[in-house]
């Protein structure tokens, strides 16, 4: 009996190891299970508190979507290129870093004389600008937000450097 019991336990362990190996093999190589995520908070003026989708946000930052529902012109604010917030946002929303996105803006500049969204250099600057402009939209990494802005979307992005 002890031998049989001991044998069953070893069999269980073997199956367990095989299952673990199968699960680990099934994970995408570039994204370990234990990789942390950062949360990017897309913020707008409290008057614009209705939730947005990721497709909306992408269209706003590509200047495909230009107006709020009431016809007011959207004012999208980027963080400066090279900043963690910008690179996380760019990779999560567009699938490309800010340098590759410059190609998109080169085409828009040439085709129609259009320019990319303006940039601000800190989370706090973005928060203050958005709080003071009812047509603005921005994004921050900080969770430390007050009621001066409304969080309209939270985007999860891998924490490793894009």
């Amino acid at each position, binding site marked *: 009996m002890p031998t049989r019991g001991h044998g069953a336990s070893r069999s269980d362990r073997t199956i367990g190891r095989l299952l673990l190996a199968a699960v680990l093999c099934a994970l995408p190589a570039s994204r370990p299970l234990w990789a942390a995520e950062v949360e990017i908070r897309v913020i707008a003026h409290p008057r614009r508190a209705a939730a947005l989708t990721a*497709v909306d946000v*992408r*269209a706003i930052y*590509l200047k*495909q*979507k*230009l*107006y709020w529902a009431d016809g007011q*012109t959207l004012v999208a604010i*980027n963080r*400066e*290129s*090279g*900043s963690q917030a910008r*690179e996380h946002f760019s990779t999560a*929303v*567009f*699938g*490309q*870093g*800010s*340098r*590759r*996105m*410059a*190609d*998109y803006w*080169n*085409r828009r*500049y*040439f*085709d*129609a*004389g*259009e*320019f*990319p969204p303006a*940039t601000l*250099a800190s989370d706090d600057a973005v928060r203050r600008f958005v709080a003071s402009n009812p047509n603005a939209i921005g994004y921050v990494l900080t969770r430390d937000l007050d009621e001066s802005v409304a969080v309209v979307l939270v985007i999860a992005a891998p924490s490793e*450097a*894009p």
Partner: protein
Amino acid sequence: MGRVVRRGIGLLLAVCLVCSPAGAAEPPAAAPASDAASATALGEAPILAVGPIEYRPGRGLHLGPTGLTIGGFTNVKAEYSDESHGEFSLDLLNVFLIFDKIPHFRAVAELQLKDILTASKESVGTADFAFDVRRLFGDVTVTEELRIRAGIFLTPVGYWNLILAPPLTWTTEIPLIVEETFFQETTTGVMVYGAAQLGPGYLNYAAFSQFLQPLSDDPDLDPPDNTAGARLVYDSGPAWSAGLTFQAAEKTSRWTQLGAVHAIWQPRRGEVLAEFYAQGGEGLPSTQWGTYLQGVLEVREPFYLVGRYEYYDPPGAAAPINLFLAGAVAKPFPFMAVKVEYRYADRSLDGDDLGGVFASFSTFF
């Protein structure tokens, strides 16, 4: 001798292609770049500011409260072929004037100085110099779904014709089918266009018509009397897009019809682009068609490799042409490109040898 040099450079490019670390290399770790330097490199931060007047590299000089921006691009080109035996040219200097002070309205002018200076073994001079108002249009945005463009604008056929600025392209030489006479580079008339969300992306449409004669007196232009066309493009963010274009053109009561398909896929480390044009009608002796497939691979930022295969079946009795191109591109800044490429064609077109080595430097300013 030229053929030997051409083959030697072709071999060198082939060796570079084989030895490049593209296949094995992991993307380089993100350098802890200075934010200010990075922003300047992307043309987002001004490098010169005097009061409200700011200059951003690659994005022009913005004249503050006037709403006027002055920018443009330049292209310097060199080529070596059996025909040219070496030629250097200050190829293009294009100046943009952009006015966007008024909500819902933007005006764009593009003035082009072409073949400003050409130097070859035989001569140096400005004999080919030409000035052109290449584009001049006003854009009214009624809604995202309804915009109106009137004036002279790039004909919205396919993909490449809308990026006809050397800093935007991966090769010095444009594909033969874009260069040949499937359609006019610009349209003088009106375009109604817009975009609407469809699933995870945007569906863009354009309906355009030429009913005015171009301003330019370029003798090479032989514009149709009237054109009408439509273009549909599905755009999934910057990752990929695909589109269809149809254009009918009339010249002295003889009609041609053009159909075009294009697709572009832009993963993080490269780009694949393909276009197909076919054109027939009573205005041509027989149907002409052509296609190309181009691939770009980021070897290590800012260095890229590019390869392209082209096929062109001209109208009439002329035999089809197969064309191969291999090249390398460096983009020290996103608005600047240094390119070198080798092009081989299995036959000439109208007596012109299409092969050779081509190099260029181009930048937005």
